[in-house]
């Protein structure tokens, strides 16, 4: 057995990444190739946090677009893993990530709803400005018992560090993680409080029931 294919027991490595899309409304001056009814130019991508390079363990990414697009299955073999297109409608894109052969892992797929139109309280304003619309999702690849080769690749450079601060360029950071953690902790505390109250009530009722029984 070569060292490459042996798996490291009890080991788990995770790598964060971001996937999503950006969309910008098309202006008046645009190339005549684009069909007249297309209103937006959008880019769907998969990239690492902090500008990290995923191609060390990601061999290729296949974006499956809507059937009406020619060659709707776009396979990207090298970074940046993204597809730029024009269109008018929002639809679900499936993103299938294939890993390098050293990993001996099967592909994973995730789904992303292409967002073109702004949403929220400033929707109208953003529409009129022609601002870029982004929709991104943070996720992590979790490798359980990776092969040695994959392990070597993944530990060549530290890649699991998140940027500290949140900013417009960096939507996912340690700060936002902590915010979420805090939210969850607060909720947990509230729930515990409720549980405590209910258990007290339960004991009281049990005592009451025991008192009534002998009657």
């Amino acid at each position: 057995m070569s060292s490459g294919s042996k798996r490291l027991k009890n080991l788990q490595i995770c790598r964060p990444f971001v996937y999503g899309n950006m969309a910008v409304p098309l202006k008046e001056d645009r190339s005549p190739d684009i069909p007249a009814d297309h209103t937006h130019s959008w880019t769907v991508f998969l990239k690492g946090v902090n500008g990290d390079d995923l191609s060390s363990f990601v061999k290729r990414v296949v974006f499956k677009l809507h059937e009406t697009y020619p060659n709707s299955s776009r396979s990207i073999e090298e970074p940046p893993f993204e597809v730029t297109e024009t269109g008018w409608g929002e639809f679900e894109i499936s993103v299938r990530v294939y890993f390098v052969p050293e990993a001996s892992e099967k592909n994973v797929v995730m789904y992303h709803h292409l967002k073109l139109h702004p949403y929220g309280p400033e929707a109208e304003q953003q529409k009129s400005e022609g601002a870029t619309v982004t929709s991104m999702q943070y996720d992590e690849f979790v490798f359980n018992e990776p092969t040695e080769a994959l392990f070597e690749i993944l530990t060549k450079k530290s890649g699991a560090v998140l940027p500290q601060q949140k900013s417009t360029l960096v939507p996912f950071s340690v700060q936002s993680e902590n915010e979420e953690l805090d939210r969850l902790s607060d909720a947990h505390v509230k729930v515990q409080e409720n549980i405590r109250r209910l258990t007290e009530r339960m004991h009281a009722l049990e005592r009451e029931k025991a008192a009534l029984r002998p009657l």
Partner: protein
Amino acid sequence: MSSADIRDMLDLPSPVPAANRPPPAKRIKTDGKKLDGIHRELHNLLGENTPAVTVMQSKFKEKPNWMQKPSPWVWTPFKNPARKDDLELHHWVRGVPSNDEYPFAKFNKPVDVPTFSKEEYDKCLADTAWTSRETDYLFDLCRDYDLRWLVIQDRYDYKPEENEPPSMRTLEDLKERYYFCCRKLMELRRDASGADWTPRDLELYNAMNFNKDKEIMRKQYLERLLSRSPAEIAEEERLILEYRRLQESSKKLVQDREELLRLLESPQTANSFAQYQSPQGLSQLAGNILASDKNRRRKGAPEAAAQGGPVARPVPGTPNGGTLPQAVTPQQAAAVQNGVHGTKQVQQAGRAATQPAPAVSKTELAQSATAKKVAKRVPPGQETQYGVSYHDKLVQGVYLRSTKISTLKPTVQTKVASILAELGIAPKLAMPTAKVCERYEALQQAINLLIETKKQVDKLDHEVKVSTSGNAGLQSDAK
């Protein structure tokens, strides 16, 4: 009623001579009848039979036949044989008057009031309250008025002789006397003739079983029923409804109680727990819990080693194995009492007890061969930077962290989701990192526990209410 019946009743001559008349039986339309166009379609839709009800639009009156000579009407005298006198009346008859019997005479069917001789009376009909004369009078009246009791009772005017007390007979008295006499006569005649009753006789006998008190009561009830005021009627309806509702609710209560009892009794304790009271037994118990927990979660690796644990125990394996058991046992005991939260500890402790050779607690993992390799590449303090972590049992493969958030049963899931919404947590995590996912899982478990506790509280509440209302009922009954 066909026209033939009507003609028979009114004794009208039939229009067509008997020989030519088609059989009055209902005829089904014969097949092979030529039907065109719409009639054929209709037939195919309706089937062979004509519809049950046909609306006959009355056409114009028949054209009067001027040629026929009008039949004369004759003022004819007639006699009614049903009458006892020879009264002769007249009526108009069309055409030639026939000498048939007056057609309405046959409706004069009298009631069969029995007659009895003096011997029969003396034998069985003698009664202290009734004299023979009065009984005869009663029977005569019955015969005259065709057993119409109201009329009889109205006309009843018996003039008693001097030595008899005056008679005040109610309707029930009269009826009772009459039916009693009839029954006694029937019995007497049957015994005399020796022949047994026909079923029809038996019917008659049973029908004449008159119970005066019951009849009086029945009439009183009816009287009362009729004379209720609308308010009373409404109240009675309400009471009936309430009674029915109470019945249903009490039935439901009984059912619920049965269910609860069944639920409470369901986990049957098979064996005694004495075997689990020794330290050895405790470790065995921990092993069993561990095994069942794993079987539930991983659905894979059967821990045969768990059963082998207590056997291997007394044998001090490696120095690790030897020192561990004592330290582990109080841990296990504590873990068992902690229940849910202690499974992880039990897992580790149990694992340590059952696998003496390759130790598997977290610190020991770090010393394993794998970790040594890792340490070569990754400086040990910086593991999180590389996203490296150690776990007990891993399913080989790669996945997205967002996909591994555990799901519950759909009904429970909706409740949990609504509670999360209340608490202000979005259903999809913004940043599913390891820490965040862990905490989210913990939150879900806590919410689950909350829901369970609430269910228990509701059940107990209900039981207490039932007990208090039951006791109140008993106390009021006792009073």
